[in-house]
């Protein structure tokens, strides 16, 4: 086990734990690797991440550390996508327009019930909701306190990862949109 006595070691430990995780790790997750070390805090972790990205850029590594869904994880650079896809031989399935519209509505209005989504889109959304639940992009987050106590839907962590968002607030703010919510 390497002692955490230098900035260099700290950086490599952050690198090792990120490398070993397929899921994004929060700064707090990463700090757990340093328990018992007094001089390592959030600031040091962020500095280490920045230093890694600088090094990866300089040495032409085909990957980098990104900040997503409230944490950090390592991903490949987009230029290499074609080669990776050739090995997996699967073109990623993209979301349909109805699925994207429904997601947009859930993202901005969450928690939201099915009837409200339908009144915005003007069509039945049963099929779309089911497929978004299956893909784990939305989840049932509760029930609304109205007659029938219908399910409410919200977006998931996977949603953030899928669209490369750190958190939901990163979505563009549309002033008009706010105007409409107040009309309701």
């Amino acid at each position, binding site marked *: 086990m390497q002692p955490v006595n230098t900035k260099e070691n700290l950086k490599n430990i952050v690198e090792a734990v990120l490398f070993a995780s397929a899921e994004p790790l929060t700064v707090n997750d990463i700090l757990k690797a340093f328990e018992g070390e007094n001089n390592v805090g959030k600031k040091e972790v962020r500095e280490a991440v920045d230093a890694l990205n600088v090094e990866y850029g300089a040495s032409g590594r085909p990957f980098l550390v990104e900040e997503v869904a409230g944490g950090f994880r390592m991903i490949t650079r987009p230029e290499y996508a074609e080669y990776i896809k050739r090995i997996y031989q699967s073109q990623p399935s*993209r979301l349909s327009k109805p699925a994207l519209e429904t997601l947009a509505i859930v993202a901005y209005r969450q928690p939201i019930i099915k009837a409200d989504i339908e009144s915005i889109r003007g069509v039945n959304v049963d099929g779309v909701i089911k497929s978004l639940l299956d893909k784990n992009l939305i989840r049932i987050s509760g029930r609304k306190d109205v007659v029938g106590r219908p399910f409410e839907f919200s977006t998931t962590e996977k949603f953030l990862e899928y669209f490369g968002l750190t958190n939901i607030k990163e979505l563009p703010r549309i002033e008009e949109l706010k105007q*409409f919510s107040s009309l309701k």
Partner: protein
Amino acid sequence: MGEDYKVRLEVFEGPLDLLLYLIKKEEVDIYDIPIEKITKQYLEYLELMKMLDLTIAGEFLVMASTLMYIKSMMLLPPEERVIDEEEDSIDPRADLVKQLLEYKQFKELADHLEERERERVNIFPRAASVSVESEGVELSNVNIFDLISAFSDILKGAAQEDLREIFEDKFTVSDKISYITGVLKNNKNVKFSELFDGTANKSEIVVTFLAVLELIRLKAVKAVQKKHFSDIFIEMVTAG
């Protein structure tokens, strides 16, 4: 699957989508929609869709009657219009305009998401096997609906039948465990969905699923997904 087929045939996602298209095509002001003209065009499109033998969802017909209602209201002088008590506007088009504008915003947001998606499909996360060990769900993150989904996963649509009967059926979890380990002895891995090929009924599906869960719990096998949304593979956990 039948649904996907239908979706592909639908030229417009819904009546609002069609209306927005007509407004854009005719270059008219969304705040001052020439309702007679747009209604006429809307109905022509429905005719065309019928001719092409496309499925016309009920919502399109509901919108058609809404448009015709608005059209008739517009013909009346303002003082004779029946005004909804909650409505502070005298313009019969007001509700529709509000709905169209709201929908338009979300369409733009959907485009934004699509743009992001286009970039994201070209990045691959580091595929680490360590995460396989942390199979469990963090207690603090579990909500009641995760719990219920777990239960409905077991039931998988078998709710109307008595559970007891299902499990007293001829299929047992231990048989399925032997079957799966047998398959994995001869193959490096097996596609999760292939384990269900040739299953006779719900009870066999449920039992197979439980056998997989049990093998995962015993850490005898692991479920691997090379990438989000790709096929799940089941493979033996090799010792050491």
